[in-house]
């Protein structure tokens, strides 16, 4: 295995574990951010430059900050006392079983064995992505725009103070 890949994968997975295991919510979200940056770097290694930078722009620049705001608005800045998890062992057992099943499927898959070990870098031009978005995928693009608008309005309405409706 390539050492750069090993480091990136280790950081990504380790940060994800920390994000799920830490007591303090802000630390969790910071670890999530590290994990998402690690994933973006994995995309870069796979040759998907555009997807990697979009991942950093959206997740680090917007989603992580959004979660931070939610943490602070719900008074989650301090480490909570008491239990942080419900039935941790059974939950972990189920998750481990899921992982074991996926890993078994990956190991047994005949389709994966037929794939090239390290195929040539496919051309990924932003122009092609743009053509695709305004050509074949123009309807999904419009739907996503509608979805984002709906999410924006819905988020504001849900989080708005309840006083006005009372």
């Amino acid at each position, binding site marked *: 295995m390539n050492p750069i890949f090993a480091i990136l994968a280790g950081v990504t997975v380790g940060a994800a574990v920390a994000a799920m295991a830490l007591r303090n919510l802000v630390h969790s979200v910071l670890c999530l951010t590290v994990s998402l940056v690690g994933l973006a770097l994995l995309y870069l290694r796979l040759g998907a*430059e*555009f997807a990697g*930078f979009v991942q*950093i*722009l959206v997740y680090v*620049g917007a989603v*992580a900050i959004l979660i*931070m705001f939610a943490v602070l608005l719900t008074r989650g*800045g301090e480490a909570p006392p008491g239990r942080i998890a419900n039935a941790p062992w059974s939950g972990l057992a189920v998750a481990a079983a899921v992982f074991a099943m996926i890993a078994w499927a990956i190991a047994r898959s005949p389709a994966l064995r037929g794939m090239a070990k390290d195929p040539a870098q496919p051309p990924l031009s932003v122009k092609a992505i743009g053509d695709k978005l305004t050509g074949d995928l123009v309807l999904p693009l419009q739907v996503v725009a509608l979805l984002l608008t709906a999410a924006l309005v819905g988020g504001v309405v849900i989080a708005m103070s309840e006083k006005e409706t009372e």
Partner: protein
Amino acid sequence: MASLDQIFVALKDWLVAFVPVALQPLAGALLSIVAIMAVFPGIFALTTVVERKLLARFQNRPGPNRVGIPLTKIRLAGFGQFAADGIKSLTKEDIVPRNADRIVHFVAPFVLVAPAFLSLSVVPVGRNMAALDFRETGLLFFFAVGAATELSVFMAGWSSRNKYSLLGAMRGIAQMLSYELPLILSSLVVVMMAGTLSLATIAERQSGVQWGVVHSWHVFTPWGFAGFLIFLTAACAESNRTPFDLPEAESELVAGYFTEYSGFKFALFFLGEYLGMFAISGVAITLFLGGWNAPFTFLDWVPSWMWFFGKLVGFILFFIWLRATLPRLRVDQLMDLAWKFMLPMSLVNLVVAGVWHLAASWPHLLRWPLCVAILALPYWLLSRGFQTRFKTRTYRFAEESRPAPATAAAGP
């Protein structure tokens, strides 16, 4: 003159040729890193002195004029000040608040400085002189890396366990998120017209000639001019400069999110802020002001990197001038400006760019007034039109605004 233009590129090639072939890409990257790490902090050091001296001049006082070369009588008009400041900040005690979150508090300044260097590395500072050239995603890389700034601001503000820090961080993040939209939308116009995200290609594209002797900078078009103004305002807000310096307003929040930093870490925050300003100015130059191109064709003999750094110095002086001139905005005014004025204007500007592109074959006398009209009408409506129509502007003074006790009890 072509040799002087490419002197740094030639120097790098000459130096890289000394190492074995297998290590040459690594050596080239290292040299670029060393150049960026030397040049931009150098400009930062000079900028701190120039800023202090110019602000002093604006306020009719002399400013720092003592520190020169030690043990001699040479004063250099105070330009030794940055060395004294640097030594001072390095030797000062590093104070961490007792309740602070130590790890996050320690990491925050590095999360600010490292992306600032990264974003500087994609800016083409001269012909063939971009350290990192992403042919496909250059501008996207710049904005993606800039996203880390918000994270650093949050980390610094939250980990300090100080109300000034947290308020400053919250203000800063709200401001940066709001102004990122007009910033990205106004640079999108250039991407639309240039058809590429590579900053080097965008700079090269502006070396064409129009009106006889003028290089075709994007700022010399209606969409480019409007985009440049929006970008400049948003850049000012992104780099937390006055009049948008609410996150670190000295008179309200001590120093905002880095109140609880001292010594070297404070200096790192300072460095990171200025590097961010240089990077965003560099991108503004590349997108709108022709990058390393001369304004007129008869000035082409001046080396390209000199044009870039000249424009950069112009930007720095402009920002200092703004700081000395304009008062600080209120938070609600800041948000109003971003969401109710700059965002709609940058969307209108996208339409203008489309019209300009479709009307490419029209005569200039028709194309220009049409695009200017599309821009001017929303400008008037958004700035004055809606307000004069629906409400008259009122001025409140201290005596009048004091409410009667009865109404104060029933207030919100």
